[in-house]
């Protein structure tokens, strides 16, 4: 990967590369530029994942006419595909450099496609098609499911970490901060409105990167909830988030109606 980054920076194809730099023993997000070639010695892929797409959004908004490279895993590439469709980034101004995830990570994430379309580092592993996390919840009876989720949502300390770390959350004004909707000064926040409304916002947006669950200080299984959202979108609209470069996300467009009332009111 180092060679490719040096090549891209040297030729001027990219003004900077967003990746991870090893500093004081910790990998941290960093923008590598041509001005500091010595930094490239500390470039690493690592096992720790950070929302590099979010960094790209910040940097690209500051320098909209420049092109940037970014390190992407399977999920990041899905994120980029969606961000292009949601008009947050321009495809001709982003050069992704792919990394394929190792087997252990793919299994921990239960990722259906743990590799981008092209990659320079890593080996392809098979994706996981059926998530055990979801099977466990689906296997519970309704009362069990209700008390499970109520208990989980009661742990929430309203840190907004899930939203702040999400690479697909780019809204300037967040509904979860609307004082008429989510009351201030109350912990846990409205159970289940807070989490269900975030889940609805994740329709056609969530790329299943899992950063939300990793950022949650209360260990709420939010990723399971959003994985279910992805499954619902697949079942109801036949749309897989981040898969295709064409066709907008189902709730982002009026489109045509393919549902009947009988499908909805089961």
């Amino acid at each position: 990967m180092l060679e490719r980054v040096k090549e891209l920076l040297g030729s001027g194809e990219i003004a900077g590369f967003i990746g991870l730099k090893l500093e004081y023993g910790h990998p941290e997000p960093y923008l590598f530029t041509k001005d500091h070639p010595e930094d490239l010695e500390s470039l690493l892929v690592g096992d720790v994942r950070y929302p590099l797409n979010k960094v790209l959004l910040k940097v690209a908004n500051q320098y909209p006419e420049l092109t940037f490279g970014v390190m992407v895993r399977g999920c990041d590439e899905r994120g980029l595909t969606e961000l292009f469709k949601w008009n947050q980034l321009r495809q001709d101004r982003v050069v992704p450099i792919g990394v394929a995830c190792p087997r252990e990570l793919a299994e921990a994430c239960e990722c259906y496609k743990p590799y981008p379309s092209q990659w320079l580092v890593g080996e392809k592993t098979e994706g996981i098609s059926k998530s055990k996390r979801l099977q466990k919840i689906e296997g519970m009876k309704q009362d069990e499911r209700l008390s499970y989720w109520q208990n989980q949502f009661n742990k929430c300390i309203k840190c907004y970490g899930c939203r702040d770390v999400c690479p697909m959350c780019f809204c300037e004004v967040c509904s979860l901060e609307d004082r008429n909707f989510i009351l201030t000064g109350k912990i846990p926040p409205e159970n289940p409105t807070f989490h269900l409304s975030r889940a609805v916002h994740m329709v056609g947006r969530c790329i299943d990167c899992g950063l939300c669950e990793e950022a949650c200080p209360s260990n709420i299984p939010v990723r399971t909830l959003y994985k279910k959202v992805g499954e619902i979108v697949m079942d109801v609209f036949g749309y897989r988030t981040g898969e295709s470069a064409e066709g907008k996300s189902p709730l982002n467009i009026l489109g045509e109606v393919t549902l009947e009332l009988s499908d909805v009111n089961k």
Partner: protein
Amino acid sequence: MEYKTVLTTCGYCGCGCGLYLEVLDGELVGTMPCKTDPVSQGGLCIKGWNLHEFVNNSDRLTQPLMKKEGQFREATWDEALDHVASRLKEIKEKNGPNSIAFLASAKCTNEENYLLQKLARAVVGTNNIDHCARL
């Protein structure tokens, strides 16, 4: 054009979660948790997530302010400290040392909090020392 992240410790409470402050062209723009930190392991509370906001906030005090004629006016450090010291002495003489209370802060270092309680106990002679985390 420069974007970097600086590893630091959150200053809000005694937990000491590790986090990265995002700096874009010399300006603080955001915060990200440090996932390799043994204490916080990638989690942050809402105060930690917004650590970048207070640093360059326009509401921050830059000069000591003293109330003169009912309005806050800028003063020098010497003026302010002399005033505080003389008034505290007066109050201690008139009402006794226990009429004064001290409030420490989680934003201060342990060493600064130690100095404050030494001031309270040894200099003023009162046990009325508490900490904002107890509020």
